[in-house]
Each structure stands twice: as C-alpha cells, then as structure tokens.
C-alpha cells in the first residue's frame, strides 16, 4: 500500500525552527530549513544527522522547499547546503530568493559580532547557497523530476510567502508555511484552490486564538507613538530589516501625512533601502490597494522616513527611530536603547518576539535594572511597550483554509502542543478528517489509495454507448471487460478483443449437476415431461426440446439418462454456464422437487 510519511525535525509541537521531512511516492522532500534564534550553539539548527545517515544527502533528498524568508524557516539553509553538504535543488519564490540572503547576512553579522561564534556560515556560503536556488512563480507547476512536481500558492504573511503543493502521481501534500487569511496594509490574504490533497500540513501558531481586528492594534500603536512625540520624547522601534519594518513604515508614513507631523522618522540601516527596493520590485506580490495606487504613488517611497546617522541619536527633540536588530541584543538598536533608556519621556516599542537572554526579552518581562558590560547597571526608565503585528492565521483562518483545500488528512505544525490539541479536535469534528500533531522526530504514516489510470478500448465504450449509457465523469459506474496489463499500461477491453490480442482460444466453463428422479418411464419420455414442466413454469424463458431428446433453457442443458443400478430411477444431467449461474441453480432446485404427476 503506498504511503505518505511526515517527520518534523523542527516545528513539531513547537515554534522554534521549521524543518519537516515528507516522503511521498518514493520521493523525499524537506519543507523549510529554519534556525532557532534562542540557541547559540549547534542546537539552533535542526539535527540533520537523522538524514545524513541515509548515505549521500543529495541522493536521498529530492528537493528542499522554503516557504518564506523568516529565519525560523530558512536560517539553516546555508548551513545545510554548504556545511552539511546538500547539493540538490532548493525552491522558493522570487521575492524570498531576493530577500532571504539579506536576512541571512543580517543575522550572520549580528551572530558573529555579538557572539564571536564558530561553526557559523560565512557571507560566501550564503551567496553560494543562493546560487542553488530555483525561483518559482505563483501557480506555476514546476517539474522537479519526472515524477515530482510542486506548485506555489499565495500565503500572505510576508512578501513572497507561499504555500506549496507537492505532488507525485495522484498523491499530494500541501504545506502552508506561515500564512494569513486576512489582508493587511501591504499584503493580501492567503488563497488555495480546492486541490483536495491527501494531506494538508498547516501552521497552528494561533490555534486557539481569534484575533481582534488589526486596526485596533494599529490605532493603539499610533496613539502611543503620537503621545510620546507630542511630549517631546523619542521612540525606538527595534526591528529586523524586513517584513514588519515595512508594515510599520507605511503605517507611520500615512499617519504623519494625515496629522501633518514634523518630528523626524529615521531608519537606522542601509539594509532597509535594499528591502524597500525589493518591496517596490515585487509589487505584484502586495495587496490590491497598493497595486492599484502604485502608478500614482509607490507606497514604499517614503517621504517622511529618512536614513539615520549615528549622530542623530544625540540630537535634542522628539524623533522616531527604527533600528536593527529587533531583539535589542547587539549593534545599533542596543546602542540607541542605552542612550535613551534613562528618560521617562522616551519609549521603546517591541513589535516582535524576543528570545531569552536578549535585552528585549528582559525588558518585556518587566526587568528594569539591567546589568551591562563591566558590571554597569542600566536603569530603564523609558516606557516599554509590546505590540504584536504578527501576521499568522488565527483559529478561524486555519479552519477556513482547511475548508478551502478539502484535504483528506490534516497535520498541525508550528504551534504549541496544548493549543494544537484543541484545534485538532475542532478540525476532526467539523471536517470529519483525521488530524495529526507529531512531536519533533515522530513520524506520521498515512496510507493512501493509489489511483491507477486504465485505458478503455473504443469497442467496449461503443458497446456501452449502444446500451444508451453515455460516459459521465461525475458518475462512477460498473463496466465489465478484460483487464490487460502490458508494458506497465493498463487497458480494459472486451473479452473477444482480449482473446484476439492475446491469441487465445475461448474455453467455456460449465457447471454440472445430477438430479435423481423416480420415473419408470423411458428416458425420452422423462425428458418430455421435464420439457412440459419447465415450459409451464418458465414462461419468460426460451425452453426448447431438441431432436436428440435433450432440453435447453437459455444456455442450460438437461439430458435424461437411465440409472445404472435402479431402472425405476432416471438421472437428469443438468449443465449451465457461468453467465446463467442463477438460473441454473434455480432449475436444479426446481427439478429436485420432482415433476408434477401426469394428468
């Protein structure tokens, strides 16, 4: 029985680093190759030793697919391709291909800067890895090899994020990556057609949450920024160079314009220029509103947002600064934070998750006295705010997507076990499909029913049509014929044609039965009595008395013979073909009851 096997190496009941192995139709595919930013040793990467055991990696793995550019989905890619030794194809969308190396480079610089780490990939490795990438377009079917094909669907979430359908023969799996079912300021909502995959692997970050309107969160954010700036304070927004940063830029830009605000907004790094460049370049990937207004005004050409110079941090007066990195653990954002932390008038807004150990994590958990280098203690008096702008589908969105794709099975990844459990039950109840939630390292095996294409001969079809039955794809129906398997092809033909093609003679198989009758008359007379009896009982059938004395009813042949030992008993030899099995049995039972007495 063919089967689909799924083993998460990461994202199985956690939100750390996505890396899911799928075996389908004898092909092995890796979905995402993410990094866990919470670790600074080898544990940040998925444990690939479980697949390197199978010999040469490139022989074992048919392809790697990356859903989007976030590091928890692509961060281990240069490590995997340049250090572990995978040399096969890597698929991702064009925007992901363009933006992914920027983020990898960004993270590499921070990792090397702050941690002075060994066993981390280099710039050259990032570049060499990106050269192995094959870019895919939305809704384009890409043939990885003769049997394996993949297709990308729009996922929202971040620029270039995609869901992927993986198909081998008639079996298919859809992997959602991270997705968002509601459009936001610059991206549209995820969409997939009714592809009815055998398995849908979906993220479940907000498995139990129904999120409030994003508008409320945005209003709240703008209000906080505005209040701080109005009272002459400075606002620091630590961000990663891409994704959320662009969304917040659009938000502030429009607000500044509407309110005619004068306080400067700065972006601290040159990286953003490139990021904005890509957002301009990949305008077709943004939402309808941005696409429509693009001709009059490109949303990503910001009037109010300017490049930041290190000296500006000391300037008096209010300002808003976007600075990298997003977790306040190194570089520019940390430097500015140190300068501004001492004043109650200032504010830091953390728009994303921070891993343990970072200054971002500490201040979000309420710590206000931070020990910095050289035993210095930094007292944080500035306001600390957390604003979630994360663009994941909530429980309602996940259910919506399952409804759209109509999968046979669902598998949850990228979420917490407890919340997954709840969603699993909900999916199983509502859609009547099996739902799985494997932990990392656990394998889920699904049996699939193979669908095998069979060609039908024209003769057979014509015969069917002659009976007034036109073929209809939606109404499956029974068809009798002979199945010929030749050169790995299956054909259904009429038995006559089969005989002809195979050069075989027809053999007939007959069932026989002996019925003993008490009758002292001669055999011919007995046969005649049988004939008369059957003629009277089987009015709808053709009953014949042949010149040789035998009786036929359709294909059933009845002959009377004398009993070798008992002359008062006659033996009726009944024989019939397979086609008349029912009638034959009926006749035998009828004859066994005896013949009516002659009147």
């Amino acid at each position, binding site marked *: 029985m063919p089967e689909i096997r799924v083993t998460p190496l990461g994202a199985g009941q956690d939100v750390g680093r996505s890396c899911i192995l799928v075996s389908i139709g004898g092909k092995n595919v890796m979905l995402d190759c993410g990094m866990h930013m919470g670790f600074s040793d080898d544990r940040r990467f998925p444990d690939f030793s*479980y697949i390197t055991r199978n010999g040469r990696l490139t022989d074992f793995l048919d392809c790697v697919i990356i859903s989007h550019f976030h590091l928890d989905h692509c961060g281990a890619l240069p490590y995997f391709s340049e250090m572990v030794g995978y040399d096969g194809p890597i698929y991702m969308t064009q925007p992901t291909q363009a933006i992914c190396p920027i983020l990898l480079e960004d993270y590499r610089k921070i990792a090397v800067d*702050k941690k002075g780490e060994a066993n981390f990939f280099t710039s050259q490795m990032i570049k060499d890895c990106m050269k192995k990438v094959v870019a895919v377009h939305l809704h384009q079917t890409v043939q990885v090899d*003769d049997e394996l094909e993949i297709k990308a669907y729009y996922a929202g979430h971040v620029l270039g994020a995609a869901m992927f359908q993986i198909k081998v023969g008639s079996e298919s799996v859809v992997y959602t990556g991270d997705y968002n079912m509601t459009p936001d300021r610059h991206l549209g909502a995820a969409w997939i057609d009714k592809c009815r995959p055998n398995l849908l692997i979906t993220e479940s970050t907000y498995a139990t949450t129904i999120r409030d309107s994003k508008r409320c969160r945005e209003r709240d954010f703008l209000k906080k920024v505005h209040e701080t700036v109005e009272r002459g304070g400075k606002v620091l927004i630590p961000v990663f160079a891409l994704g959320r940063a662009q969304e917040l830029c659009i938000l502030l830009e429009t607000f500044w314009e509407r309110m005619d605000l004068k306080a400067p907004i700065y972006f601290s790094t040159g990286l953003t220029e490139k990021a904005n460049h890509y957002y301009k370049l990949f305008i077709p990937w943004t939402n309808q509103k941005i696409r429509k207004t693009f001709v009059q005004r490109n949303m990503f050409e910001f009037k109010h947002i300017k490049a930041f110079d290190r000296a500006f941090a*000391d300037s008096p007066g209010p300002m808003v600064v976007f600075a990298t990195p997003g977790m306040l653990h190194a570089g520019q954002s940390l430097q500015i934070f140190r300068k501004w932390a001492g004043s109650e008038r200032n504010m830091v807004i953390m728009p994303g998750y921070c891993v343990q150990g970072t200054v971002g994590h500490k201040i979000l*958990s309420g710590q206000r006295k931070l020990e910095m*280098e050289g035993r210095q203690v930094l007292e944080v008096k500035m306001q600390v705010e957390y604003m979630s702008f994360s663009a994941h589908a909530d429980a309602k969105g996940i259910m919506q997507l399952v409804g759209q794709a109509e999968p046979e099975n669902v598998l949850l990844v990228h979420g917490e076990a407890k919340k997954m459990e709840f969603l699993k039950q909900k999916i199983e109840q509502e859609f009547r499909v099996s739902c799985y939630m494997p932990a*990392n390292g656990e*394998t889920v095996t699904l049996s699939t029913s193979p669908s095998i294409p069979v060609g039908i001969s024209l003769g057979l079809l014509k015969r069917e049509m002659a009976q007034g039955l036109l073929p209809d794809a939606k109404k499956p129906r029974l068809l009798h014929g002979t199945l010929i398997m030749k050169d790995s092809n299956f054909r259904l033909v009429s038995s006559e044609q089969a005989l002809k093609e195979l050069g075989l003679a027809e053999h007939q198989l007959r069932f026989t039965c002996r019925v003993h009758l008490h009758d002292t008359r001669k055999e011919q007379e007995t046969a005649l009595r049988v004939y008369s009896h059957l003629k009277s009982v089987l009015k709808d059938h053709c009953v014949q008395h042949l010149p040789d004395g035998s009786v036929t009813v359709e294909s059933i042949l009845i002959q009377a013979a004398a009993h070798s030992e008992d002359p008062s008993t006659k033996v009726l030899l009944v024989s019939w073909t397979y086609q008349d099995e029912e009638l034959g049995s009926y006749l035998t039972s009828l004859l066994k009851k005896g013949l009516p007495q002659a009147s």
Partner: protein
Amino acid sequence: MDPECSRLLPALCAVLVDPRQPVADDTCLEKLLDWFKTVTEAGPSLLLLQENPCLVELLFRVLKAHDPRPRVLSFSLRLAGLFAAQEDCFQYLQVTPSSSVSQQGELLPMLFGESGPLGGAAWTAPTVRSGWLQGLRSLAQHPGALRFLADCGAVDTIFSLQGDSSLFVASAAGQLLVHILALAMRGPAEGHPSPQGCDWPACAQKIVCHVEDSLRSTATLQVTQALNVLTTTFGHCHSPWTQGLWVRLSPLVACLLEKDPIPASHSLVDLLLSVARSPVGSSDCGLWETLAQTLSHLSPTQAGPLALGILKLQDCPQALKTQAFGVLLQPLACVLKAAAQAPGPPGFPEGATGDSITVDTFLSSKSACVGLLCQALAHLELLQLLPQRPSPWPQAPLLRAAVAILRFCHGSAAPTSDVGGHLCAVLAGCVRVQRAALDFLGTLSQGTGSEEGLPGHTQVAPGLPQGPQLLRPGPPHPAVPRRYPWPLQELLPVLRKRLCSPCWEARDSGLEFLTQVTRHWGGQAAFRHALLASEVPELTGQLLRDPESYVRASAVTATGQLSSWGLYATPTGPEHPEVQQESLFTELLHILSTDSEGFPRRAVMHVFTQWLKDGHADVAEDLEQFVARVLQAASQDLDWEVRAQGLELALVFLEQLLGQPGSRCPYAVALPEAAPPATLAQVLQALCRVQLFEFALRALFDCDRPVAQKSCDLLLFLKAKATPCGGPQEAGASPDVVSVEAALQRWQAGEQGQPLGELEPEAVMAVLRSMDLEGLRGMLAKSSDHMEKSPQSLLQDMLATVGVLGENEADCY
C-alpha cells in the same frame, strides 16, 4: 554555585512545579540543564543537593504532581540523571528523605522505575521518553548504576524504545544500550572474555542476546536496530572485548548476506566498515571474506558506499581493493561501452567491464540511472583526492568516461548500442549528472598531471559553452586545470558570454572564475596576451556598476586582481574617448564611499588591503594619501565589517612602517630591508597625518564589538612598538592630553559625532600609555554575551517571565 544563583533557585523550582505557571521559553530548560551540567562537572553534586534542598524537593514534587507537564517532567529526569552521575550522590538519591515529611521514598526508582512516569499518561509524550533515556545515560557511569538498571528493569524498556515512533527516542535508546554494554564490560570482564559469553556480566549478556535475537529476526526494522547498535559499539569501543563480540556475532551477520533481498543493507554496510576500521578488523581474516561477499551480493547502488569505504581503509588485502575499485568503476565502464564506436575493452582494470547488473540498473528507470552515475562520479571524485587511492589510477579511461557522460548530457553522443540509446534519452539535458561529471572532471584535472590527461581537456572544452551550470556557483569550477593552461581561445569567449548573462549567478560565477584564473596564470605570457586581446577586462570593469551587489563585489575583487597583474586598463568611455578616465583606485574609492550595499564596500577594502601588502603601483604613488583616503571612507561606514577591515588595513600600514611584531611572533617573515624603518617620531607624525589615531581611538568605543577588539589589538601593537623608544620623550615636555582624553570620554559615552581635530603624536602616545588597553581587551573578549549567557541572567529571566507571558509567547519572528 554562585550565591546569587543559589538565592534565586528556590523561587525558580517553585515556578517549575506550579502547573499554573507556563515555562518561559522552550530553550530555557535546555539552558538550565547546560548550566547544571557545568556545575555538576565542576564540583561534588552531593554538596550541591545538600546546600540546595529545593532541587530534591523539585524532583519529588514533579513526581507527585497529578498531571505533570511533559517538558518539566523530562527536565526533572535529565536533571536527576546529571546528579546521579556521581556515585555518592547516586546513593543519596536512591534513598532520600525529602525535607517535607510527607514526601519520602527512593527517588531514583520512582523516577526511572516502573512506578514512575514509565507507567503514567505522560509517557505518551516523546519528550518524557527522551528525558528518561537521557537521564539514564547521564546516570550510567558507575557499577552502582548497573545494578540499579538491572533492578528496575530498565534494560527491557530500552529494548522496546529502540522501535519508538520518535526517531530521537529510538536513536537515543540504541546509543544508551551501547553505553550500558561498554559500562558493563568495563569492570571485571575487561580483557579477553570468551566469545561464548559465559564470563560476561549479566547485563552485557542480556544486551548481546537481544542483539542476537534481533539479527535473527525476519523484521527488517529489528535487524536495522541491532546493526546500528553494533556499528556504534565498534565505532566507539576499542577494548579487547569487542573482538569476542565480533567472533560471537559475525556468523549471524554473515547469515544476513544469504537472504534475498539483503535486509537493512545500508546499516549492514555501516557495520562492516565500522568493524573493519576498528582494531577487530586487523585481526579477523574472515572479515575480508565477508566484505568481498557483501560487495558481490549488493546491488550496484548499495555496493558503492561499501566499495569507497573499503578503498579508504589503511590495511586491507589488495584483492579486495581491486574488487571494490571494480565496483566503483562499473557504471563508467558501462558508459564507455555504450558510447564506444568500435568494440573493445573500456580500458579499466580487470573486473570493471560494464557488467549486466549495472546495465540492468541503468535500464530500470531514469532516476536509478541518474542516481547510480552521480553516486559513482562522486565516489571516484572523493577517492581521487585520497593518498590511498588505487594505483595505477586509470586517468585516461576516466577522462574518456567523463567526456562521454557530458556528451550524452548535451546530446552530442552517437550511440551504437541499445544501452547507448537509452543513456542518450535519459541523460539529455540532465543538469544533475552534468554537474557531477564536471566536478569529477575538475578533480581529475588536478590529479596526477600525467601527460595522458591532456587530450581529455581539449575534448571537453567544446562541451563547456553548452550547459547552463558549467561554471559552478561558489569557487570557480575546478575543471580548470591548475597545471596546464586551458585552450584560451575557447575559454575566453565562454567567459565573455557569461559575464553578459542576464542571470546574476552566471555573471558572479564568471567573475569569481576570472579572479581565480588570474591568480594562477596572471604571470603567464600566453594568458596575458589572450586576456588583453579579449573584451573580458572591459566587461569586468562595466560590472562594477552591476545592479546586483553580489556581482559588484565580485567585479571589485576581479578588477583588483587584474590590476595587480597589470591586466586592467581603465576603460575609456566609448562616447568620449578623449576624456581621461579616472584611475581604478578612484573608482573603487567611490564605490567604498557611495555603494549602498556592504558586499562591494567590503570587497573594496579587501582589494585595498591586498594592494597595500603587495605594494601596488597606485598605492606606492602616494602611500600616505592612499591610506588617509581609505581610512576616512572606512571610518564613516555603517557596516562594522568595513570598519573592521579598515583597521586591518591600518595594521598592515603600521607593520610596514614599524616592522612586523617580530618580538611577539617568532614565525613572522621580516619585511625586506630595502626601505629602512623610519624613526618612531616620523612614523607617529605619519600616523597623525593619515588620521589613523582618530580612526582607531573612535573604533575603540564602537558599538560593534569586533571593531573595538581589532582597534584594541592595533593600539596594543603600537604601544608595544613605541614604548621602548618612548622613554626620553615622556621625560620631556608633558604633552597636552586633555583634549584627547575629553574626546575619548565623549566617544565612550556614545557621542560619535565630535571630531578630534589636530593631534599631537606625543599626546596620543601619552594617552595610550595611560589607558588600560589590556583590561579593555579582556572585557571585550567576554562581550555582553558574558552577561546574556550567565546563569544568573537565565534564572532572572525565567523568574521575570512568570505572569507576564501572554500574547507574546507564541508570537514568533
């Protein structure tokens, strides 16, 4: 343990056992265990437990919890294992009364025995099973642990966990068995126990019997598990008892070869190679026979890795090596046979004639054919680089085979046989095979350098322009022979085409290729002549303005390399040929100051540093001006790596002025004595003129640690060089250091905007002498990571998270 941590620990333990408190971050418990591991390795665990009774309390309370959280339970199991690794602590935990009267009992049996999590609902969570195994792995360090394992029936559970649904758990179970076996054999049985196992410790005997049963099993999974356990055993344990183990088990292993198909062939290959590499291998003649038998029984694809493994072995009979080499060559022999115009042997050593089994694999399916060819090429490529590769090495037929494969790939082969026709159909346009063949060809060309290789190159060259991937990403394709110039008239047009490609990958690889080629052949007249006659240098110059930053960076490196060999003439504008174009230096400096991307700016700094080291003509013209302009541009860069490279260049400059740090580095090569070192005063004046001091002192307080570290190293070097001769000056008029110190304080406070102005060398030196640069270097080496990674910070973070975890917990990246 740090007193502050000791103070925080009870509160943390209380949080961990409180089911209402979510555990902060899934990495926190891991980091906590890391810390406990260092603590227990550094000192007595028993003392630790006695001083921190909350730890034992934690273990008890987790055990007694009605519905323990799997992560915390797993953590507790692993923690208990860490403590119990020390025998006295193990005994303490065996019968430990908890401080709370209601909680008493034998802690370890409760944790690891059948009454513990083993029978509970939590056991369904793989993390708990994994924690149980890891806990036992840490605990199993002493004879007491062995008795404990036997008493609580743990070994049977481990057997069953070998077939766990979680890869991680199953693998950990196998490894734990090996560990226990080695521990059991470490004691009285050390030496040469009998193969029959009558004198083996009971625990070891039990494990070996289980392995034997598994090897006899008809279920492939069980056979695989047994083979994996043995592979790890022979890989890690090299004590004499492993010989007895092999004697006992080898007949069972040999039996596997008689089955059709051979079960778990991949694991079997791993085991045989593991045994062959261990001391057991050298003493067992039967092993070579088994290996030979396995080679002939396995399918070509399965036999490949075994053949390569055999050829890598140090001591192995020649006949076996020949057989193994034959296996590796089979696919290529088939290709040669299929491509042959005239019948005849492919020219490989005996045994590699293109047998029917390999042909069958080729014909079975496209993926099988492609897979086998790629595997064979990759294996031969690896082999070629090894010192123990077979000799004589069939260079010529291998070259012919690689060329034949390439011809099949781009459809220029004219097959005469059925197999040839099939290969044509399967390999046409197959990039994967093409790549593998080129990689192989590249390695071959680096090989022996014997003359027989040469004709092959000229044959391959025409194939080069056809494929899309031919100049591989990354380092230039090694298909460029190092010892023999490529036919340039064919190569340069290909290169030119690639430099004009619309794909950035092709342009970039082309430039990387050019850089490498120039580095090797820049001095050869034929190459210089051909290159200068081609358009390649001009095109390279144009790529300095490529829209893709990776390409601009590679163009910078390539022009820098060309210029070093005098092969880069500044392009004259086609529109205004009369206008004198700016020099390459000015152009690169412009890129350094204005390019919006870090890669090209970093590449420029690399080129400039190299130029300075090599004494490039543009640099030598006015050394001080060169350094001053570069440092000025680098100091203002937003990219810390550019600033760090600026300091690198500054260091090279310093070394050239002051001489290498000879006294510190006995291996350093002294600079040529042509230009005698200037006097220190002159040097310091020069450093002031190029504003090196301002750059370095500013960098000392850079927000990016590596820059500050580099600057610290540079200033320490300068200080060391200057101090011996600095005495008289110090004794003289005291320089005005106030302004320098004031500026330093401002920079330290993060005010980078303030310029330093004119500097007096003496003032700078006085400031340097007064600064604690060594102390600063020590502090920078620790970095703020020292704070982030400290256990105290971890405990504080975990405690601080209590109650504030809300929406942000799942809000990932």
